């Protein structure tokens, strides 16, 4: 076997071994395979005895399922109403960069917007509301998790929307729509009846990913979520970092419960899909034309605009706070702008920035080499990507981070191994590989193989074709995939914290640590730095091919 043939196995191992090891680490203590000195023999019983468990578990389900439903509903509303319109093109352009905004930054920005003392309240006070002090309203960190649900929904909506737009290309939508419209259906009705059923099949896995993620998000829950009690994932994190080591195993037991919750929710979602499918079929075959549907168009535009403004406005408020001098309620803007906050924090940003860049670059390079190796190996064996492979790629994204990372830490501790930068990179790879693979596989397969045929005819080896023709021609999508991978790595909070043993300080971990201090100016600076770290590579990915290949046609979009 050649080296190349080993790459797919190596890639699978890099993605799945840490997950498998982590799961072993959370299950083993339950059956006594792993014990720590002085730790409780029955960690699961201890977790079940924690009085906050029912509420925390319920919150995890409600915020996760609720936000996924809202995000998916918005995507369906927007696409059905706005497909083919200029508004959608605009929206796509506005939302693409939002995709890579780290969750922590988005959550900070949103918190700055919607808090009773936030920007929205300031903008309309006191002239409209009569408030000269912020109202005592439980908007942020509310016990029902509404702020968290909405925050997750506006952050996941762009992801699902862009995935759906990409998948639409494979649904033959335009011709189906034309037929349905000729039968008298409205644009929206036709879309819901003939496009959505096929589209949903294409985006089902990403929807599952969103659901699993939303139920277990830690960084967003720390910033927007309830505290009396917090969601289960946050509580697991607390157990994992308690001075009392016995709680470490309790954290592992909590992770098992969290995993069971996610699996149950995914199963329930799957059953609901079947039910909705049946009902939908009745609706489609009933032949009704639903004339009220087009009336929802303004709602779709409003919903799209609101979610874009929520994230963009949040980022803007981060920027304003970074430069704000005194800024009291209900002033809409600070009394003055100053660079004092920036002067204070810029010197401290250097080290975490370097650490972030080092980890993200290494992870991205490794992942890129593995993914290109996989795709090339598949191409040479003439093996198309099957659904089975896609499931494997999505698997690490479906298993919640909070479910297996604690196990990884328990394993490392019980094995006496040091956590550090390499472990962080390995744990980032688990999440970076799938995203790079997903964003690269379509352009890779869309490449016209007749270029290769010609080159082979001229005597070029497969390796030479790869390096001299295919990679240069695919430079733009490769760079985009690299930017995606970089952004994913930059945004990782939990893997960095748990695999790094708390000693690897990246922009994300520093920013979330600052959140506990509540200093909006500091959070503003770190939030903006974090966002730029994720976005700048995208700008580079767009600019580089244009500069390098300014004299070539067909190699840039």
């Amino acid at each position, binding site marked *: 076997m050649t080296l190349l043939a080993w790459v797919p196995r190596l890639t699978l191992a890099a993605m799945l071994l840490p997950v498998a090891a982590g799961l072993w680490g959370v299950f083993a203590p339950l059956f006594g395979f792993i014990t720590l000195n002085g730790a409780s023999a029955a960690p699961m019983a201890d977790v079940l005895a924690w009085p906050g468990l029912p509420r925390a578990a319920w919150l995890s389900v409600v915020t996760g399922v609720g936000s996924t439903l809202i995000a998916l509903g918005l995507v369906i509303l927007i696409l059905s109403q706005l497909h083919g319109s200029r508004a959608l093109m605009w929206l796509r352009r506005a939302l693409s960069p939002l995709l890579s905004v780290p969750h922590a930054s988005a959550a900070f920005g949103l918190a700055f917007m919607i808090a009773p003392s936030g920007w929205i309240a300031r903008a309309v006070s006191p002239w409209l509301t009569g408030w000269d002090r*912020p109202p005592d309203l439980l908007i942020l960190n509310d016990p029902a998790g509404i702020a968290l649900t909405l925050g997750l929904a506006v952050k996941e909506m762009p992801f699902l929307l862009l995935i759906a737009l990409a998948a639409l290309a494979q649904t033959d939508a335009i011709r189906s729509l034309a037929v349905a419209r000729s039968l008298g259906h409205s644009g929206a009705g036709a879309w819901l009846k003939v496009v959505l059923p096929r589209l949903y099949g294409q985006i089902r896995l990403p929807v599952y990913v969103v659901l699993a993620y939303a139920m277990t998000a830690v960084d967003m829950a720390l910033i927007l979520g309830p*505290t*009396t009690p917090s969601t289960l994932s946050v509580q697991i994190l607390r157990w994992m970092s308690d*001075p009392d080591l016995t709680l470490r195993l309790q954290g592992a037991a909590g992770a098992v419960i969290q995993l069971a919750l996610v699996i149950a929710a995914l199963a329930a979602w799957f059953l609901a899909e079947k039910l909705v499918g049946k009902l939908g079929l009745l609706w489609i075959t009933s032949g009704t034309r639903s004339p009220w549907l087009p009336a929802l168009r303004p709602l779709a535009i409003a919903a799209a605009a609101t979610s874009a403004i929520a994230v963009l406005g949040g980022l803007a408020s981060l920027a304003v706070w970074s430069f704000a001098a005194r800024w009291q*309620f209900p002033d809409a803007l600070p009394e003055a702008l100053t660079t004092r906050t920036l002067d204070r924090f810029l010197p401290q940003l250097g080290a975490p920035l370097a650490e972030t860049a080092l980890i993200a670059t290494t992870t991205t390079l490794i992942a890129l080499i593995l993914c290109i190796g996989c795709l090339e190996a598949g191409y040479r064996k003439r093996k198309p990507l099957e659904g089975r492979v896609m499931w494997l790629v999505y698997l690490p994204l479906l298993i919640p981070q909070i479910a297996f990372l604690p196990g990884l830490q328990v394993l490392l501790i019980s094995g006496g191994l*040091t956590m550090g930068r390499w472990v962080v990179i390995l744990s980032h790879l688990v999440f970076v590989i799938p995203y790079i693979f997903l964003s690269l596989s379509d352009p890779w397969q869309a490449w016209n193989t007749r270029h290769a045929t010609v080159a082979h005819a001229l005597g070029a080896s497969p390796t030479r074709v790869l390096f001299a023709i295919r990679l240069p021609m695919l430079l733009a999508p490769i760079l985009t995939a690299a930017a995606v991978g970089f952004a994913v790595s930059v945004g990782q909070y939990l893997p960095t914290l748990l695999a790094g043993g708390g000693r690897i300080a990246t922009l994300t971990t520093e920013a979330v640590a600052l959140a506990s*201090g509540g200093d909006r100016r500091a959070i503003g600076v770190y939030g903006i730095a974090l966002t730029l770290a994720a976005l700048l590579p995208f700008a580079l990915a767009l600019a580089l091919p244009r500069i390098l290949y300014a004299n070539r046609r067909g190699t840039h979009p």
Partner: protein
Amino acid sequence: MKRMLTALSAALFATTAMAQPDPSNWDAVLKEANGQTVYWNAWGGSTTTNDFIAWVGDRVAEEYGVTLEHVKLTDTADAVARVLAEQQAGKNEGGAVDIIWINGANFASMKRQDLLFGPFAEQLPNWQFVDVDGKTVQTDFTVPTEGYESPWAMAQVVFMYDTADIEAPLTSMDAILEWSTAHPGRFTYPQPPDFLGATFLKQALLDLTDDAAALSQEATPETFAKVSAPLWDYLNTLTPTLWREGKAYPQTGPQQLQLINDGEIDLAISFSPGEASTAIANFQLPETVRTYVLDKGTLGNASYLAIPYNANAAAGAMVIANFILSPEAQAHGLDPLNLGYGTVLDMAKLSDDQRAAFDQIELGVATLTPAQLGTALPEPHPSWMTMLTEEWTKRYGVQ
């Protein structure tokens, strides 16, 4: 023969690797520290402390060639957990944590489990300046320090209030309750188990109980139930009048500053007499904020630095602990423009030049003088904090 040699060299290797520096030989400590990287694990939620630690890092790099890395924790307990984990895994040298900002329950637990390097504190050259008689720097929450941690700042509970909204200081817990009932939603405290939130519980208990002496003994379920009863009665009445009706709490002390600055609350607890002045200078509090202490007095304690038994850079850590006790560092920390923490030094032990640095400092508009602060009340035994926190969480932390 060969086997004996291997055994011998293994033994030799073990002892050299295990050897930690001798604090009484300060020249050797300085020599060993030069070039070391020290990981200081300290809570990272306060931007002013972060700045102070960065300043210390610059100074010890210039002066002693020691590189200081601040590992920002969300909770000091994280660092204790790390050392514990290393001990359990048999990692008895080259540990990840070199120096910890610590006190109270975390210190008691590390000391009990032999996780600390030392004793070293009283051998540090700058120990000569420490106010051993006037300040509680040799017992930490009733636990004798015995040289296993070195004090670096004095703290005392004060209440910060916005004079634009509250006319006169509310100098007892009952006065606070009365005011909060009349002005619902304008007071809160950090959510226990946050350190400052737990401090609020202790402060309230001290003010409400008739049996303060019981608090210096280890709590038992019986004494706890009896002594803490007035606190729960008090909180049952207070909670519905709190900010957000007690359904949400600020997660840390500094979050209260943002709430006061936004006009959401008017009154907050602080464990640093200078914090309000520093925050005013940084635009984090309105200029109208002042501080006060309760009539019956408020809790006070010292913050300490401790070195784990398996620290990788114990020599560098001692150099840092010693530098922080220097008149230069203490004066820097006392200045509300930098940190606003109380000094642990005895002014009478300083030279005139050294004292001048302290005399020049403007304590700030919102900082009380030592006379106004009065004598600090001693901390209860650490077991009280643990049990108060657990009971609070059961009653108010999970709804």
